[in-house]
Each structure stands twice: as structure tokens, then as C-alpha cells.
């Protein structure tokens, strides 16, 4: 692979050239070929995911008697199959948005706490603990959410109902709190360590020189953060949030255990019902026949596209940000 050889010329150019004329060594060719092959394998896998999901989804959607986007039901095993993703899309987006609204400000707060407020020793330990919490499997969040968090939410929800029930969004009927709101809160708790962990790293990298410049102008601690840390970390916070959003959108187990699903869109976020893509796939899978599976795969494809969109948006924001700052 002579092309690769010349491409990597900066270090290669330092070789004592006369002893070895530019013959491509077999070792080099094999090794660079192998590593290139691995990279291409990754691309092939990504392509395969898109292709296979699309094929199965096409089978399901072409057989579907309902409207795939607007139907409020999921009778994929019936013949003819009749299903749509409206409820799932709504539930997925709403629960993730709730999670983001709750988690991002708090995560930025904790990240600042660890990077700029906590005493140094405490900060080290805390950072460690947050990293460990980010590794706790989602099924454990799910178990905790279903058996501990759900009963705790009842009081809070009746309170919300009392003051904000008139909006309709916060109406509550005192049934167990297995609603999209609880899902959102649980997702927020779940993605908190991830967002915190990334954000904290970015905040810590704020150049000391800039912080000292602000301090020397007579800025208070908060003003230093506002002038240097936050502008410096903004793109980091965005990408961390998107990472968290991606997790929230695709989260399966924490939703499957907490939500009491139903194929309807409830105006109230506090009452049970609704569903998410991932949750629906996990809970319907065992009963699904061949067409049922294809239908689930079709919904999975939408989820896939949704996460692609979020990731792409994050990347764009960061790229634009980079252009602006440099």
C-alpha cells in the first residue's frame, strides 16, 4: 500500500533513507492493511444495521393497514396488521425532554461543584463516585425506580395536581405513579452522572490563565465562572447533554419497569399510559409473531434515526462552536 506510506510521511521522512530505499516492507503492508480493514469493518457494520433494519421495516410497513406515523394502536400480530408509532414517538420525546430539562441544569451545577466549589479532597472523591455511578446498569435504575421511586412520587404528584392541575398537564388521579413524568425523572437521575462526568472534565480544562485574568479584574467566583468557565465549556455541555439525550431516547429497561404502558396519549404527564420505542420493543417482543417482530424492527428503525438526528445535531453545534472560537 504505497499510498498509505507516502501519506504518513512526516514521521517516515525522518528515517535514515539511504540504507533502505523506499521499498514497502511486508510487515508494514500487512499491519496497515489489517488496521484499515478493521476500520472498514466498522463502516460495514453500520451500513448493515441500516440495511437490515430497513429491509424488515419495509416488510412490516408495506403490510400495515394502519398509518405508520399516525395510528394510535399496536396490533401488529393481527391479520392484517394494524399499528402506528404516534404514541411511542410522543412518549419517547416527552420523557426524554423531561429528563433533559431536569438533568442538564443539575448536572452543570454538580460539575461546577466538583470543579470549582468543593474542597479539593472532597472534589476528587466526588468525581470518582460520579464516574462509578455512571456505570450503574440501567436495569438497576429500573428496579429502584419501580420499587422505590414510584411510591415516593404519589405525594408530590397530588401536590402538583393541587396547584397546577388546572393546566391539564399536571392533572393526577392518585393511581400509582407509573407515568411518563416518573419515567422522565428516573431518566434524569440516570443520565445525570454521564452528563456530569463529561461536563466536569471540560470545566476542569478551563485555562487557569483565563480564570486568573478574571479574578485579577476583581471578579467574584460566580463572575469568574460566567466569564471564563461557562463560555469555555459551552460546547462541552452541549455535547454532554446530547450524549445524555441519546441515552434517554434509547433507554429500555428503566422505562419498561416503571411505565404502565397503554396505547394512548394522555394530556396529563402524571397519569399512566403512553410508551416509548425501546420500552415497547422490550415488552412486546416475547408475544410478537413474525409480522409483530418486523413491526417492532420498524419502530426500532425510527428510534435509530432519531438518535442519529440528535447525534448529528450535537456534532454540528460543536463544529460551529469551534469555528467561532478559533
Amino acid at each position, binding site marked *: 500500500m504505497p499510498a498509505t506510506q507516502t501519506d*504518513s510521511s512526516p*514521521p*517516515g521522512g525522518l528515517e*535514515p533513507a539511504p540504507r533502505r530505499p523506499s521499498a514497502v516492507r511486508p510487515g*508494514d503492508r500487512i*499491519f*496497515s492493511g489489517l488496521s*484499515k480493514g*478493521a*476500520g472498514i469493518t*466498522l*463502516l460495514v*457494520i*453500520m451500513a448493515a444495521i441500516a440495511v437490515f*433494519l430497513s429491509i*424488515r421495516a419495509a416488510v412490516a410497513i408495506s403490510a400495515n393497514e394502519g398509518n405508520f406515523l399516525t395510528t394510535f394502536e399496536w396490533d401488529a400480530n393481527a391479520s392484517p396488521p394494524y399499528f402506528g408509532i404516534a404514541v411511542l414517538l410522543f412518549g419517547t420525546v416527552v420523557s426524554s425532554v423531561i429528563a433533559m430539562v431536569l438533568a442538564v441544569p*443539575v448536572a452543570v*451545577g*454538580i460539575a461546577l461543584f466538583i470543579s470549582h*466549589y*468543593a474542597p479539593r479532597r472532597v472534589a476528587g472523591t466526588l468525581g*470518582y463516585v460520579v464516574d*462509578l455511578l455512571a*456505570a*450503574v*446498569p440501567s*436495569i*438497576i435504575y429500573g*428496579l*429502584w425506580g*419501580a*420499587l*422505590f421511586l414510584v411510591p*415516593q*412520587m*404519589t405525594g*408530590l404528584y397530588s401536590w402538583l395536581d393541587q396547584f397546577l392541575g388546572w393546566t391539564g398537564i399536571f392533572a393526577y388521579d392518585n393511581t400509582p405513579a407509573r407515568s411518563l413524568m416518573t419515567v422522565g425523572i428516573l431518566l434524569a*437521575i440516570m443520565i445525570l452522572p454521564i452528563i*456530569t462526568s463529561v461536563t466536569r472534565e471540560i470545566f476542569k480544562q478551563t485555562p487557569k490563565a483565563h480564570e486568573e485574568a478574571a479574578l485579577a479584574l476583581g471578579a467574584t*467566583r*460566580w*463572575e469568574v465562572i460566567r466569564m471564563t468557565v461557562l463560555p469555555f465549556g459551552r460546547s462541552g455541555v452541549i455535547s454532554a447533554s446530547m*450524549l445524555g439525550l*441519546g441515552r434517554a*431516547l*434509547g*433507554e*429500555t*429497561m428503566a422505562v419498561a419497569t416503571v411505565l404502565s404502558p397503554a396505547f394512548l396519549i394522555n394530556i396529563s404527564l402524571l397519569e399512566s399510559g403512553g410508551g416509548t420505542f*425501546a420500552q415497547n420493543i*422490550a415488552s412486546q*417482543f416475547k408475544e410478537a409473531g413474525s409480522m409483530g417482530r418486523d413491526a417492532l*424492527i420498524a419502530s*426500532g428503525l425510527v*428510534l*435509530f434515526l432519531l*438518535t*442519529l438526528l*440528535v*447525534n448529528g445535531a450535537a456534532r454540528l453545534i460543536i463544529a460551529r462552536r469551534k469555528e467561532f472560537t478559533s
Partner: protein
Amino acid sequence: MSDTVKDTVKSSRGRASGGAPAPDGPSERPGATAVLRNTTLQQPRLPRWAPAALVGGSLGAGILIGVLGNLDSRIQWGLIAALIYLTATFAVTTAVEGRRQAVDRFAASLVWTSFVVAILPLASLLWETIARGIPGVSWYFLTHSMNGVLSWQEGGGIYHALLGTVQQVLLASVIAIPIGLLTAVYLVEYGRGRLAKAITFFVDVMTGIPSIVAGLFVLSMWIMMLGFGYSGFAGALALSILMMPIVVRSTEEMLKLVPGELREASLALGVPKWRTILKVVLPTAIGGITTGVMLALARIAGETAPIILLVFGSNMINANPFEGAQSSLPLFVYEQWAFGTEAAYDRAWAAALVLIAFIMILNLVARGIARWKAPKTGR
């Protein structure tokens, strides 16, 4: 020597007064900054005990309102206390120290509050898992399967699930680690141009794939298209897809930390590039790479969704990951939770505790390696 120095000074001073326009004289100052002049460094400040008093007071008020208002959820008490704390801090500091200080203190108390708000559920999660899990964990629990145990019965164990998890995770890493490592090597050492860009982009995309989508992909290809049955290996395929991008990312970061001088030094000795990578670059970064790989392992060991779709679950011990349904720890937790009986809940908590312990040990070892190998990068 100082004479020549002085000469330079004089000449440069002369040049300066001729060139640049002279700044305003010292006597005149614009109105804007004149307002700012502070004759004293002393500022009225809150006494040192004030923040503690504010915390105590608002906690007390929160509890009082909670008790008097007959609010049954502690969450409400806490929220009220937090709200009182934040407003009181702002009000008191504005009154005593002025607006700038008030904003500063308010921000600080907001940061502290968000920390407490976040740490409580996470602490509760760990506490619940440990407190409810410990009674169920025993040697029997670790060494027996659920074969013949009905959902409402006591007893049974997680041996089959542990075995499944270990086999699936190992198989997944056998697939994912070489591909991930080599891809990272390609990106850092060889990759230029469009192909490398595409790979970098799609590695990022792959990081964001929900685990259930990876499961659906293997389902549609391996089981539905190629006609293989449910097996631990099918699960491992999905897990390896989730693992690859993590390995690539962390390895890439580590390889980039290896100083270019090191490569050049080796190449300058006439060592071929591939040997330089194998003998110099990779060994230098090995600590960080190991850490990344172990963190990736910890991540996939807790995955449930693809396992539900591909491994299916079983109550019996199946030591062959290539054929027949298996179980896994996270799946076991989910199944036991779904049964909804007290005995099953106990098993779910116990298994959750074992799973957390498993993952924490992986994490701690990984971070131990990172710390042990870290000083070389000098950060």
C-alpha cells in the same frame, strides 16, 4: 553594561513619545470610571456562621411546613426547604453585602443545592440495592440455578445467569477488542483523508446507538435472516457492536497522548513503522487502553435490552453459549422483577447487588490501572 541598557531606554522612550498619541493626562478621568472609585477595601460581609444558619433555618422551616401542612412525601419537604434556602440566601445577602455578592452567593447555594438534590436519589439507589440485596446473597445463591424454582418460591440462585454474563461478555470482547484496537491504530497512525473521516464520524454515530437497536439488528440478520436460534453468542454479537466504539474512542485518546517524539525516535533508529507501533506506541499507551477496555466491559455487562431479544432467558444452566437460550445477570433481575412476587423481588435485589458489585470491581480495577500507569502522561 547598565550604561548601554540606559541608552536603549532613552532611545526607545524618545521613539514612543514621537510615535503613539499621548494618553490622557492623569488628572482627567471619564465619568464612567469615576463613579466606580471605591475608597475603601472593606465591604460589609455576612458573618461566617450565616450560611450554616441559613441551611439550618430553611431545613427547619421545610420540615415545619411539611408537618403542619400534612405533606406525606419527604420530597416535598426537601423541595420547600431548598426553595426557602435559595430565596433567603439571596434576600439576606442583597440586604447586607450588595447585589454582586448576592448573585455570587446565590450561584454558590444553587450549586450546593443541585449537588444535594442529585446525590440523594443516587445515594438512595445504592443504599436500597445494598440493604435489600444483602439478605439474599449467599454461597447457595451464587452456585445454583433457578431450575425447578417457581416464581413465588424462596430459594434458587443466579449461577446460570452469572455464567451467561461472563461468557457473553468474554465473547463480545473477543470480537470487539481486536477490531476496536486496530481501528484506533488506523485512525491515529495511518488514517488520512476521507476514509478516516468517515470512520471517525461513524464511530461517533455508533456510540449513540441504543442497545435495543443493536439487538434488533442482530435479530434481523443473525436470527431472522440467517436462521440461527437464540444463543449467548447472538447476544455477544450485539454487545460487541456496543463495545466497539467505546474501545475505539478510548484507545484513540490514549494513542494520541503518546508523544510524537517517541515515534520519531524509534523510526529514526530504523525500526519499521509497524514494529514501532507494536513495540513502542502500544506498550506506552497500554495502561490507558486497558482502562478503556475494562470500562467498556463494565458498560456492556449491565446491558439488558439486547439480551432479552437475542439470548431469550432460561432458568437452567447452559454452558454452551453457541446453542440454546442462556440467561444473564441483568436479564435475571428483569425477569424476577416481572414476576412481581415477594420472593422474586428479593432475588431481583440480590442479583442487582451482585451485578453492581461485578461492575464496580471492573471499574475499580480499571481505574486502579489508570492511576498506576498515569504519571507518564504528566497531567
